[in-house]
Structure formats: structure tokens, C-alpha cells
């Protein structure tokens, strides 16, 4: 079916004597455009590479295809075996940087591990934790943070309630309670 369709267009262009040339070149331009389209994103190939079977891709597109199926590395078009090493980068005329597009895809980022935050991790173990590590952490960190805030009478903390109000009294009371708790802990630590 496809061949019969092209035949009819050829016939019509040759029969239309004068304008025939013009339309043919236009056709060719169109073909050229799609010839340099990536077979994966269907857009003009950027950082183009060609597989050994001759199929054109953007390197980022092909790279992602290879990453998606690490166990089945086949050409997305003809399913021939392909590999990262066996693709040819394409350099057009006038491209200033002749760098291998395969080097442009950032290498896979290394896994990132963040250590648990000691302040938050320590607190849950602070009461009757079964875990000795957590417990000592909590006790160590907690009172110190506390002393710095409670013994800091000189400069008013932002957000501290005005003197004499109910809230102020409550805060004062709480501070004392915690101060006592801290002292008790230090005492308990020394005894233990």
C-alpha cells in the first residue's frame, strides 16, 4: 500500500511539468527533517548518536532506554543488540565542542545517606528506652540545650511572654521544673 501511494504522487508531480521541480525539492526537505529525528522522542536529535544498526537517537533518550532495561539491551527500532560502548557520536560541521555526547549525561549520582539528627533521634529514647545508645544521647544533649536557654536571663528571648502575665508565670514555672529535672539527671548519671 505504501509503495502504491508514493507512485501516484510521483506521477502527478511529473505530469505537472513546470512546478514539478519545486514540489519535489520541498518534499525532499521534509524527508530530511524527519531523517534526523530521534527515534525515541521523535524530535530533532540532540547530542546525536547512531547505533551499529544505523538508528539515530538523542544520547539522553538512548541512555534512558538502556537504563530502563538493563537486562535487555536492544535497539528501540530494530531490536538488534546494542550497548553503550558501541554507539557512534555524530558531530555536525561547525560544532565548536567535539566532545563525546556519551560523556555529557551526568553519571549516576551516588546514593546519599543522611545520618539521623541526634537531637530528634535521642529524645524518644530519653524515658525508658531499651536502647542504651539512644538513652545516653538524649541525656547528654538535652540538659545542655536547656541550660543555655534557661540561664540566658540577660537578653530577652524573642517571643518571651511579658513579665507578670499568666503565660510568663507558667513559663517560669516550666523552666524551673525542667531545671530540676536536668539536675536530677546529672545526679542520676553520677550515681549510675
Amino acid at each position, binding site marked *: *500500500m*505504501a509503495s502504491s*501511494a508514493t507512485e501516484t504522487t510521483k506521477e502527478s508531480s511529473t505530469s505537472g511539468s513546470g512546478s514539478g521541480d519545486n514540489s519535489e525539492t520541498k518534499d525532499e526537505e521534509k524527508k530530511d527533517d524527519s531523517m534526523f529525528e530521534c*527515534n*525515541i*522522542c*521523535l*524530535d530533532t536529535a540532540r547530542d546525536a548518536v547512531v547505533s551499529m544498526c544505523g*538508528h539515530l537517537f538523542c544520547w539522553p*533518550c538512548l541512555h*534512558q*532506554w538502556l537504563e*530502563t532495561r538493563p537486562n*535487555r539491551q*536492544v*535497539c*528501540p*527500532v530494530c*531490536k538488534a543488540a546494542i550497548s553503550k560502548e558501541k554507539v557512534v557520536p555524530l558531530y555536525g560541521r561547525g560544532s565548536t565542542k567535539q566532545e563525546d555526547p556519551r560523556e555529557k549525561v551526568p553519571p549516576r549520582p551516588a546514593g546519599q545517606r543522611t545520618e539521623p539528627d541526634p537531637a530528634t533521634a535521642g529524645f524518644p529514647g530519653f524515658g525508658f528506652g531499651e536502647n542504651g545508645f539512644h538513652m545516653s544521647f538524649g541525656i547528654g544533649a538535652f540538659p545542655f540545650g536547656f541550660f543555655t536557654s534557661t540561664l540566658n536571663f540577660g537578653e530577652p528571648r524573642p517571643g518571651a511572654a511579658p513579665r507578670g502575665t499568666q503565660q510568663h508565670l507558667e513559663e517560669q514555672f516550666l523552666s524551673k521544673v525542667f531545671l530540676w529535672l536536668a539536675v536530677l539527671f546529672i545526679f542520676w548519671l553520677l550515681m549510675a
Partner: protein
Amino acid sequence: MANIAAQRIKREFKEVIKSEEVAKCAIKVELVNDSYTELKGEIAGPPDTPYEGGTFVLEIKVPETYPFNPPKVRFMTKIWHPNISSVTGAICLDILKDQWAAAMTLRTVLLSLQALLSAAEPDDPQDAVVAKQYRENLEMFQITARHWTNVYAGGPHVNSDCDDKIRRLVDMGIEEHQARAALSSYNWDLERATEQLFS
């Protein structure tokens, strides 16, 4: 990546609309929503098959990782075929699974499904009952598939024998599709179908 998927579906959509298969009314694609994540496909039953003259509607869902992973396709039109579930419309076709390749498009998927209607693969079935009938009683399979095409896909071949048997079960209080499914599964043996439905 969702961006790549939408961009590509847009391009493919234009490609399918311009394709000669659409001109011949063999395949069709329509958008279901504006985000290009869900489409409605249509394929014509291939000539010289029990599906001839029928139009089969497909649900196409485009994953965010498209085209690196295949679209999810399912028959919305009920169909009697060894590789398609007569209950859910699920399709057993390798290119929609591990044989998918990123250069395939909506157009190639629809054409592959059309080819599947022409050439069933009963050794790799999706619907075991249909596949068994296909292997053991091909004539009965063709009668059944043609009847389903007539009822659900607008095919031209009315089978009055099938219709009569279904009517008898419907008169006994069975729902029409349930009656059709039971009769289809038992090679249109009214007695055995009745037995199964009332057991």
C-alpha cells in the same frame, strides 16, 4: 519525564491522524483528556476474519515513563479471542509487555493489535476457555467470535441460532451477557450451559 511522554503523544497523535490507515478507516485515535495521558483507540476488524465488519474500541493509558515503557491497552468492546480476556478485555501481546521498544508508537500498537485479530496465538492465551475452543473446535470458535462481533462490535453477521438459545436462557431469568458467555464457553450446548448457570 512526564513532559517527554506528553510531547511524544502529541506528535504521535498528529502522525496517526495523517496516516493512511486512518484514511482507510482501519484505525483511529481520540483524546480522552487534555493531558494526553488517556486515549481512546479504535480498530476495524480485519477482513477474512470473524471480526470483519466490527469496530473495536480500546482504552489506552499512557504511563509517565512512556515511551520507555509501553502504554497500557485494553479492549473496551467485548471480544471472543484466545489472546484477549472475554471478561476484562485484558490483552496478552508481547510488545505490550517485555517486547516493547521505545521507537514503537500508538500507530504500531494499533496495527499490531489488528494483526493479532488476524493471527491468534492460542499457545500463549489470555483467555483459557477461548483458547481451548480455538484449538479443539475451530469452526465453533469462528461462529462464536462472529456472533460476538455482531452483538458488541456492530458486525454484519446475525446468527439466529445463537440469538434463539440466548433468548431461551434470558426467558429463564438469566442476564443476556451472562447467558451468551455461558453458551459460548460450552460450544452453544444449551443443556450444559443451563446446568452450569443453575448449579
